[in-house]
């Protein structure tokens, strides 16, 4: 298959996935009890009179059937009209624009950190001369995985913000403000990447070509850094692309602790309040992002590994 045909086919698949995700979440949300408007209507503390309820129901299309609502909202989504939050009336596009830039910056930095961390851990675990250090470092991914993020975040805040006063815990100070949350997030997502990387490096290190490189007189650092690393990190790359979702899930807690209003926090709030338009928009956005990133990884593969051909 040609590269072009591949891109076309994969893009079609990607669109299908986004649409299916949308439909699935729509159906589930519709089946669930509760929604902020209905809640307001049936609030036990403040049952609204019929005269007020009617306009609200009509205003929010709650009188339509499932299918009608689905068609209406899908139609609006396709034309770029994502509606308003049911909870706070903010246009969903505005909410997402703010949250997205925040989270993308956070997630990108976190991904960067986690790549550096994972590399550090994996390289130490595989190459460090002292065996005891290697086995301790090897256990790190499991430790990372089982340490609650909020504890990591809190400790970082205590040290760097509360004690040392290097960064504000509440104010946006540009890039520095991203460092601690990104680090916290990175620690949460590093574990699986580091694990796969350790396996990949161990395997690559035992390949016969390493002996040949050594016999050539190539310095050990070059062997490790250029050859073993490149060969051993291919599986970790796939995984890194898959962690996009984890980054978002992790962002929920990290953003709460570091007081950042990114997609994570908005998601949590929206799901908590069943703010359907916001949830739907996030699903579309995130799944589109996810499939896009994975599409790009697939396209990048052949560049890194000449043995793989697209399609």
């Amino acid at each position, binding site marked *: 298959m040609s590269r072009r045909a591949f891109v076309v086919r994969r893009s079609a698949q990607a669109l299908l996935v986004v649409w299916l995700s949308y439909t699935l979440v729509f159906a589930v949300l519709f089946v669930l009890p509760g929604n902020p408007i209905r809640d307001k209507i049936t609030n036990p503390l403040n049952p609204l009179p019929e005269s007020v309820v009617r306009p609200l129901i009509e205003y929010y299309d709650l009188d339509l059937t499932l299918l009608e609502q689905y068609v209406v909202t899908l139609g609006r989504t396709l034309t770029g009209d994502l509606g308003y939050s049911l909870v706070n009336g903010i246009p969903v596009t505005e909410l997402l624009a703010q949250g997205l830039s925040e989270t993308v910056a956070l997630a990108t930095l976190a991904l960067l950190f986690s790549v550096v961390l994972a590399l550090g851990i994996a390289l130490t675990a595989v190459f460090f001369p002292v065996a005891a250090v290697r086995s301790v470092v090897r256990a790190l991914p*499991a430790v990372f995985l089982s340490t609650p993020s909020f504890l990591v975040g809190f400790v970082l805040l205590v040290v760097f913000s509360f004690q040392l006063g290097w960064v504000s815990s509440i104010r946006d100070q540009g890039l520095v403000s991203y460092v601690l949350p990104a680090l916290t997030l990175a620690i949460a997502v590093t574990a699986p990447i580091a694990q796969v990387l350790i396996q990949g490096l161990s395997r690559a290190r035992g390949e016969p070509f390493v002996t040949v490189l050594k016999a050539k007189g190539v310095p050990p650092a070059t062997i490790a850094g250029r050859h073993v690393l490149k060969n051993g990190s291919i599986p970790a790359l796939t995984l890194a692309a898959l962690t996009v979702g984890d980054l978002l899930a992790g962002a929920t807690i990290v953003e709460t602790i570091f007081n950042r209003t990114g997609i994570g926090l908005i998601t949590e709030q929206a799901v908590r309040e069943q703010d359907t338009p916001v949830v739907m928009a996030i699903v579309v956005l995130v799944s589109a992002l996810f499939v896009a990133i994975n599409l790009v990884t697939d396209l990048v593969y052949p560049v890194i590994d000449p043995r793989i051909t697209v399609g």
Partner: protein
Amino acid sequence: MTAAGIAVPATGFRLREVSVTEWLALAVVTLLVVAVVAPGLLTAYDPLAPDPAAILQGPSAAHPFGTDYLGRDLLSRVVHGTVRTMVGSAVAVVIGLGLGTVLGLLAAYFGGVVDAVISRVVDVLLSIPGLLLSMVVVVALGFGALNAAIAVGVSSVAVFTRLMRSETLTVTGLPFVEASHHLGGSRRQVLIRHVFPNSYSAVLSLTALQFGLAILWISSLSFLGYGAPPPQPEWGLLVAEGREYVVSSPWLVVIPGLAITVSVLSISRVSQFVKERVL
């Protein structure tokens, strides 16, 4: 492609080859088993009984792990919480593993339409943020520890399916699978006898990690108020609750947190040990 990629356990092991860390891990796992089977052996306190005279006390001889906001003994709560925690994570992992394995196996082995359908489902599941997915599932199923565990399990199905699919694809291409067909094996026979057991070991490695992840994930749901109902203790819940007191009573978070970390490390060490030397 050779079978070199497949991890194969060696036969037999000798006791003196068990290292110190492995002994420690075994000891922790034994403690966990005791905590599940006979928690009374490890602590005399009632995990549910408040003691107004001992509210929010730090670790001491009387209460080695300190006490919580109602004066309940934390050691006792951690010990009695083991069952729920282990069962919760086990349910999550079993669902993720079980469903994921079957789906992955089917997708890879049958290919074609089956593969296309399963792969799209997996893509959909992967593309919805995990937390959102599990919250939605919990809300749909109703609250409670079991449902939270199911939600986490469902959210991890996709990862397992993917891994299982790629492992199965690798194994299906190996000569011994064809050899078995050549010896007269039907699709089903070969799938059960060779493909599945050989694809499984990589997936099992993920399971130990996923076990720890499940505990934390369930506790994340607890943070957000989706967890087990009070007053029954559960580690994730203990961590989540203790969070509010972390400034003045850090042990409420640190001790259950350490319990999770140490257990996860020990379980994965032991499972690795079992995989390498016993099975």
